[in-house]
């Protein structure tokens, strides 16, 4: 079966790629667009390492078909920082609070945090933990991740900068 030309809007830029309909958004981002900040973990929607924002909502890119993301606004971790000199407040807080160990879950964690803070700018600790229900950290560094998100919330700059 033929590949389809698909136009993906990623971090504000339009990209045209030719993909078969069964290609996941995760593979399209990583392999076709070389945006490898989005990780590929379980490939089954459980670990959240592949989380991206699709029209403002956090989704797992491993269960999203690239062809079905056409016409949607996609934000990956590469699109969070407002510029080369400045990080997104959530990223800054992750660094300052040491919320990173191996780093594999970090992009997904940060996008889940951005989604959470966009809906709820001052979440309680249980709300932060519930907001991370779809993201696994195999280093089990959750305490610092929760602390970083609380810190980002305190800056009052939770959503997209």
């Amino acid at each position: 079966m033929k590949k389809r030309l698909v136009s993906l809007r990623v971090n504000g830029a339009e990209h045209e790629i030719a993909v078969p309909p069964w290609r996941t958004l995760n593979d399209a981002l990583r392999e076709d667009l070389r945006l490898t900040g989005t990780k590929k973990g379980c490939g089954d929607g459980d670990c959240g390492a592949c989380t991206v924002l699709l029209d403002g909502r956090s989704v797992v890119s491993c269960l999203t078909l690239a062809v079905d993301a056409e016409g949607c606004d996609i934000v990956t971790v590469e699109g969070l920082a407002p510029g080369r000199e400045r990080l997104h407040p959530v990223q800054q807080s992750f660094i300052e609070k040491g919320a990173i160990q191996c780093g594999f879950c970090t992009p997904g964690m940060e996008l889940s945090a951005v989604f959470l803070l966009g809906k709820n700018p001052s979440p309680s600790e249980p709300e932060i933990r519930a907001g991370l229900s779809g993201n696994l950290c195999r280093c089990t560094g959750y305490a610092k991740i929760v602390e970083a998100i609380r810190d980002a919330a305190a800056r009052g700059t939770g959503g997209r900068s």
Partner: protein
Amino acid sequence: MPAARFEFLSPRSLAETLEILSRYGDRARVLAGGTDLVPKLLRGTLRPEAVVSLRHVEELRGLTFDPDRGLSIGAAVRHAEVMEHPDVRAHYPALVHALSQLATVQVRNMGTIAGNLCNASPCADSAPILLAREARLEIGGPAGSRSLPLSEFFLGPGRTSLAAGELLTAIRVPPPAPRAAFAFRSISGRSRVDMSAASVAAMVRLEDGRIAGARIFLGAVGPTALRAPRAEEVLRGGVPDDALLAQAGEAAAAESKPISDVRATAAWRRRMVSVLARRALAEAAERARA
């Protein structure tokens, strides 16, 4: 098995969607949130000729509440959209709770209630509460549209009464009734992220402090969500105190038909039904009093 290979269709209207589905019949699969369908396509356990996305079908995106007509949830509406809707939060708290127990933030941002129902998993978390609320389904198809009580929809695990070429277009939930209230309880063998190993939805209607009517549905303890009529009978006319609710819980457990699988043993599931039923009934009775 290698991933399925299929044609991808993304219709822009309901008419176009129904036209495609009637042309392909059971050779097409409908893609709503994708959280159930896409893993099966990637594993190759489902190999349809065509996948039809509902993402851009505006007519299926409606979510409306009317005090006289109740709630209408379009087939492409995501769980999270239902949970966030102010009228749903005000009038359907047990539905909001059931959806909040379902999977993860991301899955709730993707998945739809229509997809959860059409997948017909015995442990679908939206089924028991929508059955207790006497939801109806709007179905479109080659022979026109029809409306069906949800209670007639499930035929078995993964099997529904949708015919080839038919599409579940909307779920209609009746408006709140006076002195009647609902509650939902579920448990999984691990964390809340895992699928439910047992769940109970309950409705209690009070008159002068006594139970004038009750409905109890059990999830994940039978081939489809099950009604527990003997437990409902135990409650009729009684005062909802601890002893009566415990008795109803035991009756519900006796009516459940659980199996042992990777998630839990049948014996544990049955015990959990009695606990969950007692707690759901207590919460529903409390809400009905308020």
